[in-house]
């Protein structure tokens, strides 16, 4: 070995021993830290057991089994305003989000579409342990909270109650949610496309519908179904004030009213029955029984195997039937006025809901005219031809042409709601009254919202002879509709009506794209649960 070589070797040895020393030192430090930590945890636990002064101010409450009637008033989240500042209140809400930060824990408490920021901070009301407990409550759990309302200097943009926050003094879990949620509410309300840019998750429709109970908690769903309830109420109020009578009709029926192709068959003791695809027959029987003007709100069944954005197998029908004096336009005017009252009611009383939905699903405000625009079928066909569509005079409108016509009407008349009158007789059911001036057309009409059909209606044939003749023309077995035709033999007033799909009205009013969004528990050929 050369001198240099020897020197190199000792240097190496020295370096090695240095490394080993360092390693030892490090391990010792590590052990010390560990011991320290353990001691801390132990002392903390001791502390938790011994000196948690706030022990009685938090915890999991006993299951509410109606043991006691408390006088406690639970304030609603939407009522939390600066007027309540510095008051000590109780409320029940869900944990929407929680974020712990040292000695503080921020919670967002949600009640339906409203939410408020709350704070648990270590102090003379809350202990360290209490803050820790609050931070560990799982999302979506329901809690009872006692808190002081405090004004805030800077608006809380992320909450519906922007001017106040809650300083929590007591917090009890009333119902604990499982830690893992099948979907996150924030993901379910994210507007289309917004998540993609930031690489965030969105929830697809099937996942939403599979977990509908959670999906229905989102602000968007809450708004949609509050608005839907509004549509029903406005429908009822308007018609009742016009002298209509609400009727209830059976949904289990013995024969299909329009031929049997799209009805569900159910076994009915020793025979079979059908689920009503419209209350048509019963509405008309009520007219023959002198009820004059009737309406009915109830389920309607369609056994069509169509998987589109606007078809359901069960939906809520809003049906109208009325006797008129001389012209079926009296019926059209009555229905369009009802629709206009609904649109006005929604516009005037449901702005919060409309805007909540718009946040996730932007759309232009719904426009309508007073009086409602009425176009004749031939005018509609002429508009389509001018736009380059080739179709026959008596052809039915295809869905794309229906939508295109809606666009053309919007451009020309600036309305999202219009009536298309005088359909070709050939494309309508047998009970439709033919047009006296042109037997190729009929006294029938459809109503459209944003270019999609929401109502189909007509003057009905109230003369048993003509009705028989029309049924024969449509090759319908007279034996099967005998009782229907017989209803008109003992004096029947001229009458007309129509049926509206509730879900479609809500969908199109809000400019949504799928009828499942406005059906609480949708039924389609592929979905029977939840």
């Amino acid at each position: 070995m050369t001198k240099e070589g020897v020197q190199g070797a000792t240097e190496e040895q020295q370096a090695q021993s240095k490394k080993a020393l360092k390693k030892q030192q490090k391990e010792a430090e590590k052990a010390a830290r560990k011991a320290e930590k353990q001691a801390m945890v132990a002392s903390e636990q001791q502390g938790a057991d011994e000196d948690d002064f706030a022990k009685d101010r938090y915890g999991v409450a006993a299951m509410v089994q109606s043991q006691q009637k408390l006088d406690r008033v639970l304030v609603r989240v939407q009522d939390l305003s600066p007027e309540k500042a510095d008051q000590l209140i109780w409320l029940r809400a869900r944990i929407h989000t929680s974020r712990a930060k040292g000695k503080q824990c921020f919670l967002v408490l949600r009640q339906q579409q409203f939410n408020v920021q709350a704070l648990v901070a270590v102090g003379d009301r809350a202990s360290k342990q209490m803050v820790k407990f609050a931070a560990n409550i799982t999302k979506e759990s329901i809690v009872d909270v006692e808190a002081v309302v405090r004004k805030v200097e800077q608006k809380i943009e992320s909450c519906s109650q922007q001017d106040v926050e809650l300083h929590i003094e007591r917090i009890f879990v009333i119902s604990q949610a499982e830690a893992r949620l099948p979907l996150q509410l924030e993901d379910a309300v994210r507007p289309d496309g917004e998540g993609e840019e930031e690489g965030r998750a969105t929830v697809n429709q099937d996942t939403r519908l599979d977990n509908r109970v959670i999906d229905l908690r989102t602000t968007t769903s809450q708004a949609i179904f509050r608005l839907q309830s509004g549509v029903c109420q406005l429908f009822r109020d308007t018609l009742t004030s016009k002298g209509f009578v609400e009727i209830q009709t059976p949904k289990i029926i013995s024969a299909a009213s329009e031929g049997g192709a799209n009805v569900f068959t159910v076994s009915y003791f020793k025979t079979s029955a059908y689920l009503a695809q419209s209350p048509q027959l019963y509405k008309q029987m009520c007219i023959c029984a002198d009820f004059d003007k009737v309406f009915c709100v109830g389920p309607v069944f369609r056994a069509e195997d169509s998987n589109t954005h606007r078809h359901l197998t069960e939906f809520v029908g809003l049906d109208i039937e009325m006797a008129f004096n001389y012209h079926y336009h009296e019926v059209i005017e009555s229905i369009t006025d009802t629709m206009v009252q609904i649109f006005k009611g929604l516009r005037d009383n449901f702005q919060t809901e409309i805007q909540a939905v718009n946040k996730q699903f932007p759309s232009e405000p719904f426009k309508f005219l007073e009086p409602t625009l009425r176009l004749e079928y031939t005018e509609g066909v002429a508009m389509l031809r001018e736009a380059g569509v080739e179709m026959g005079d008596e052809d039915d409108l295809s869905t794309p042409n229906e939508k295109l016509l809606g666009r053309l009407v919007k451009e020309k008349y600036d309305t999202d709601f219009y009536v298309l009158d005088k359909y070709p007789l050939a494309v309508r059911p047998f009970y439709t009254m033919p047009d006296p001036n042109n037997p190729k057309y009929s006294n029938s009409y459809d109503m459209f919202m944003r270019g999609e059909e929401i109502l189909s209606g007509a003057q009905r044939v109230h003369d048993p002879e003509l009705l028989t003749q029309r049924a024969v023309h449509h090759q319908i077995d007279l034996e099967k509709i005998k009782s229907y035709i017989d209803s008109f033999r003992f004096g029947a007033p001229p009458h007309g009506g129509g049926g509206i799909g509730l879900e479609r009205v809500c969908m199109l009013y809000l400019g949504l794209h799928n009828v499942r969004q406005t059906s609480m528990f949708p039924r389609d050929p592929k979905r029977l649960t939840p």
Partner: protein
Amino acid sequence: SDWLSPPSVRNMALRELASLEKYLGLRKPNKYSTQGDKKTPVLQNNAAPPLLGLVTIACHLVKEAKRPELLGDSAESRAVVQQWLEYRVTKVDNCSKEDIKIILKDLNLYLQDRVFLAGNCFTVADVLMYYGLHPLIVDLTVQEKEQFTNVSRWFDHIQHHPGVRHHLPPVAVLRNRIYTSRHH
């Protein structure tokens, strides 16, 4: 030869050339034949060797009609006309379904600030591109026509240009936009 087959299956290029002749005001119609699998048009020329191909024949007809301005009135516009004639036979003819959207998108962008393909003057490029694009445009929905609004404007302009349309059915082009919002 192609002349013997019924008019419905007759070569599109030959019908185009017949229409172009009428547009140019050539009194005596020429006789054409086709050559090869692609049915390339051929014009028998008495004095010279036969002319082969749609673009070559079209340029010849323009010269015969003494309308040289239709090939461009400057060196630059002559080059642009030749480029679009080339584009017509290489890109537009026999393009696949996916190509259609790409062609229309590019053309829409190009026509954003132009009245005609070669800028401000009407040329034979406009005529042959109109003939070539017709089968594509005729299948577009109203919404698509609005999407490719510059193409539609140019197309409508050319189909109304006196004497151009001839054998082709008119295509409806709306003057107003009806799909203004992002939805539906």
